[in-house]
């Protein structure tokens, strides 16, 4: 889709970008990351010819972009930057319809597209269409920025720290929504950030840059487990183990061989389960929700004709199966629990996460897990 071949950009004597080679495949989410001045933004801006390379060439769908009219090229590539990029004298509708207007779409089609896009980014079209950027909050403006970049449904989107100016809570929320949006629209995205957590969250591949060169370009998993050198290791940070947990979904890592009991089952039935080798027993309510667990010692101390409800420890925390292991760990720490139940969308227990399971995961090499998904 996008291919950079030996691309170099020199500003005076400084090589801002130095012999960069990259091949971005259709539908890929590539994150360019590095310290400020590493050349990540310059690299991105060469893709829509806001900057022309000093040497090397860039191909989009096999065509050398240096031969193309930059104005036409840019209109086919979505471009989103921090929220200041909205034009304050235009309404939200006019901002979103900017490129459609440049391309002289019929008025009616423009309006339909604006409504569609506002809904897509979670803003009520009727409420926001006629407002001005200054009447919106930072998060709302950012949504408009994303909608505007999507206006003509371009196959490629360039995004330059689009969530950089937001407060941490709004940023996280926007990131989550953006992941969902990307699952729908499946664009080829080149995304610039200096935030490693953001990079790991989004990227199919992360290209770490320093002094104009790509130091390592790999999947988030590989970056975390096999950093190419000290620079990458330092850049990723000492909390890479925790970051790794945020890459793995609970449902991929949970212990699935669990058995369930109802509170009105007898102790005899529980003992029977243990005898058959079951080691993970969750007590569930009639509604199917996990309500607690039982200890083996309690089981042995209790007469067989009594009920499970009498020995149930009524404290079990749950985590949804589509959350990450980092979320699971948070729940465990918050509740001081050695293990937690994993629930599916119907709140039924489908597995368990234990602290020993987490330890096992961070130490075992699961290099290909991303590809297996």
């Amino acid at each position, binding site marked *: 889709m996008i291919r950079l071949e030996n691309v170099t950009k020199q500003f005076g004597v400084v090589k801002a970008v130095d012999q960069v080679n990259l091949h971005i495949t259709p539908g890929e989410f590539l994150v360019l990351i590095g310290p400020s001045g590493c050349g990540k933004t310059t690299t991105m801006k060469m893709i829509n010819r806001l900057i022309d390379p000093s040497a090397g060439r860039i191909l989009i769908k096999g065509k050398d972009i240096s031969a193309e009219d930059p104005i036409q090229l840019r*209109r*086919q590539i979505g471009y989103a*930057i921090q929220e200041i*990029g*909205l*034009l*304050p004298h235009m309404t939200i509708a006019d901002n979103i319809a900017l490129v459609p207007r440049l391309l002289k779409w019929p008025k009616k089609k423009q309006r339909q597209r604006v409504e569609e896009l506002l809904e897509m980014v979670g803003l009520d079209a009727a409420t926001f269409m006629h407002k*001005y*950027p*200054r009447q919106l909050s930072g998060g709302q403006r950012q949504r408009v920025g994303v909608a505007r970049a999507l206006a003509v449904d371009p196959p490629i989107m360039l995004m330059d720290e689009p969530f950089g100016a937001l407060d941490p809570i709004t940023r996280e929320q926007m990131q989550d929504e953006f992941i969902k949006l990307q699952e729908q629209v499946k664009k080829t995205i080149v995304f610039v950030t200096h935030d490693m957590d953001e990079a790991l969250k989004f990227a199919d591949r992360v290209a770490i840059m320093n002094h104009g060169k790509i130091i390592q370009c790999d999947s988030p998993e590989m970056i975390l487990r096999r950093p190419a050198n000290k620079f990458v290791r330092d850049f990723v940070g000492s909390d890479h183990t925790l970051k790794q947990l945020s890459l793995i979904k609970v449902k991929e890592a949970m212990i699935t061989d669990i058995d369930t009991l109802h509170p009105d089952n007898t102790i005899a039935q529980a003992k029977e389960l243990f005898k058959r080798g079951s080691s993970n027993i969750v007590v569930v309510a009639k509604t199917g929700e996990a309500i607690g667990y039982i200890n083996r010692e309690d089981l042995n101390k209790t007469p067989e004709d009594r009920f499970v409800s009498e020995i149930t420890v009524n404290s079990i925390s749950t985590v949804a199966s589509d959350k990450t292991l980092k979320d699971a760990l948070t729940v465990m720490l918050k509740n001081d629990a050695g293990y937690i139940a994993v629930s599916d969308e119907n709140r039924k227990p489908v597995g368990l996460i234990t602290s020993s399971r987490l330890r096992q995961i961070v130490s075992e090499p699961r290099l290909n897990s991303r590809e297996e998904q």
Partner: protein
Amino acid sequence: MLQYILTHQAEFMVLLRQHVILTCSAIGLATSIGIPLAILASRIPFLERPVLLLGNLGQTIPSLVILALCIPFLGIGFAPSLAALFLRAILPILMNTFTGIKNVEHGIIEAARGMGMTENQILWKVQIPLTVPVMIAGLRTAVVQAVSLATLAAFAGGGSLGDLIQQGIMMVDQERLMTGAVSTAALALLADFIIGLLQQWLTPQGLKISA
């Protein structure tokens, strides 16, 4: 004062008309040359420095000096008065428009360019609309300065309400002096008010909302 105006109605009206004509032509000329010149200067890099230099120089020279300097070249009467007023009025208009265009947030321009607007579209659809409030603020300064500077046209024989002030001083005629002074002040306030309305009307809706 009112008495004076009534008794010297014809004379007063002539002076008032001269004052207004002088001011309006100077402003008209300054606007129609100043704004295009500012736009040009903002787009052509080598014009940038001379414009800024001229602007700073121009602001520091006292108005009366400008008028005095015009007389040797243009004689006395309407022409040197108009020239002086024009030179005074063009500066705030030129400078405000120029700096306004130059100071439009870089991120906004970059976003516009990144989305595929041509340089001309960026100028007309982004930079100029965003500059309107600053531009009009410059116009406002220019108008108020021109109205008061027009009184000095009396020294150059340009004819204006300044004549009444000058005569009032020389003849120790307080009535005449006050008439000239108060009516000039009223004219300045009126002009300011009109420009204020213009500003309201021309400023893009989205910019009226404070961020």
